[in-house]
């Protein structure tokens, strides 16, 4: 089985500060990480390969060379190789451009059985790229899969919707997007980390994929004008009280005044 995982290296949003004056995010200063749900996707790919045999190939697109330790982490978790597409113009890529680039990379790889990616990335969380790649490849997609089992030429998966969980059978090749529910990504052992440096990281440029200079910006359909921290903090009133019991009583009173308690 050939399993492809799309992995995004993103700023770690939990450790991302804002410029105190402009309110803009300090993206350059934030450490990078593998987007959380993509880690789940990689974990699931490795589990499938362990259970059924096969290769796990990671494809990643970035505007700048990602920290090597993150690529080594993906390999140490069990990926067999990485195809790293790095090009400064990827900064201009929206979901349309990203999916167009990644689906061309997938074509270049040749046959595959299943492609996996996180439901959305922690930076953009647009939840578009997975379904778009499937559409560009002409293959079915199942989003937000929380359980995946390989059959003969098929996959049987549980997908999470707002009000239901559906068990769905899909013929291969198929693209699956996953969230945090599906698994707990492994922490690689020291031995795995040491072994990772012997696995191949193959660098691709956009030219290698047949894209001309300046084509990414021309492809994109959505343009970002500005990014600001929202000024939506609430001006919270401190509930007074000498003890927890007193505070609870004062809060109950406030809620009753607002019509939020006492009428039930």
């Amino acid at each position: 089985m050939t399993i492809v995982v799309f992995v995004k290296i993103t700023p770690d949003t939990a450790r991302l500060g804002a410029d105190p004056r402009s309110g803009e995010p300090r993206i350059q200063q934030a450490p990078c990480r593998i987007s959380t749900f993509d880690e789940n996707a990689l974990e699931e790919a490795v589990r499938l390969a362990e259970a059924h045999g096969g290769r796990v190939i990671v494809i990643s697109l970035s505007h700048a060379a990602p920290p090597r330790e993150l690529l080594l982490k993906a390999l140490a978790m069990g990926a067999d190789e990485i195809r790293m597409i790095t090009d400064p113009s990827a900064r201009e890529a929206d979901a349309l451009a990203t999916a167009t680039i990644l689906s061309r990379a997938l074509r270049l790889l040749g046959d595959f059985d299943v492609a996996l990616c996180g439901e959305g990335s922690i930076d953009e969380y647009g939840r578009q790229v997975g379904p778009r790649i499937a559409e560009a490849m002409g293959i079915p997609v199942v989003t937000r899969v929380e359980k995946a089992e390989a059959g003969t030429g098929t996959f049987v998966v549980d997908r999470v919707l707002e009000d239901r969980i559906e068990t769905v059978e899909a013929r291969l090749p198929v693209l699956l997007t996953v969230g945090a529910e599906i698994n707990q990504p492994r922490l690689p052992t020291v031995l795995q980390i040491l072994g990772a440096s012997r696995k191949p990281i193959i660098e691709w440029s956009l030219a290698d994929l047949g894209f001309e200079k300046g084509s990414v910006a021309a492809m994109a359909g959505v343009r970002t004008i500005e990014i600001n921290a929202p000024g939506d903090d609430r001006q919270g009133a401190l509930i007074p009280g000498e003890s927890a019991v007193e505070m609870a009583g004062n809060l109950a009173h406030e809620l009753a005044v607002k019509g939020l308690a006492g009428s039930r």
Partner: protein
Amino acid sequence: MSDHGDVVVHSEQDEFALELLAAGRPLADSLGAAMTGFVAGSGGLERARGLITHGADAALLLAVDESSTDLDHTLAALEQVARERHPGVILIAATGRGTELAARLAQRLGVGCAGDCTALSMIGGKLHIERTILGRFLCRQIIESRPAIATVQPRRFTAPDASPDRQGPVARIEAARPAPRLRVLGVRLREAGGVRIDKSEVVVAVGRGLRSREDLAMIEDLARALGGVVGASRPLTDDLRWLPPEAKVGLSGVTVRPRLYVACGISGQIEHNVGMREAGIVVAINSDPNAPMMSQADYRVVADLYEVVPALTRALDGLS
């Protein structure tokens, strides 16, 4: 119809389709265009008329097999609408299905799409939107491609009131159903005990401040006293699994907009706050006065939740 093309709105969930009418009306007015509701599924005629009484100028109706989960039929019909009618804007509610549908439609048409929009406006004939990125930053974007496709965050807009005498044409869409590529083997409803945190007027949410699973009883008691339901932040649903995933508030969970949101022992990570930002009144109970949750609260209670929560439940019970 103006040169700009109609504004087409669609959601598989009727309550969100109505909200899209509120989001779409100013865009249609600004373009001098009509707003058309697109309905797929059984019982469509009633639902199409519902959209018109709530503000759509016209409706399009696709009879689609409800058991089909792969969205391929709805997608084919929407693609046909886009290619034949040249709408200027297509708005789809950002549910799980809606998000997939919008992304696939946009890819087929070779156009951009902005997801989970919280504000939309037409400036110089182009759709400008706002959405949250990087967990908490407000991002303003222009959709350059046409049709401008955007998904709209559920519960952001308020459905317009109905005018029962509003009239408008309802047209049926004839689109061939593609051969199914996915087969649904089974469906389980997620409403364990009928609890839907996104449907409740009061949500009492709990986070890492809870020390053991048994202590959930205390949170449930408070929720009962307030006439609400229990929600949770991600560590409790995904890591500890003390509550089912459908109780999760936040970026990877459910967006709620209750009248009252009580956060007990929730530190207030971005991941969580995005899911409750639209709540009416927010109470934060936390022993740490500097917890980020405090900046999101209308009432701050700085104390141990193990003391405050039972006392609050008793005080509320005493009121009724």
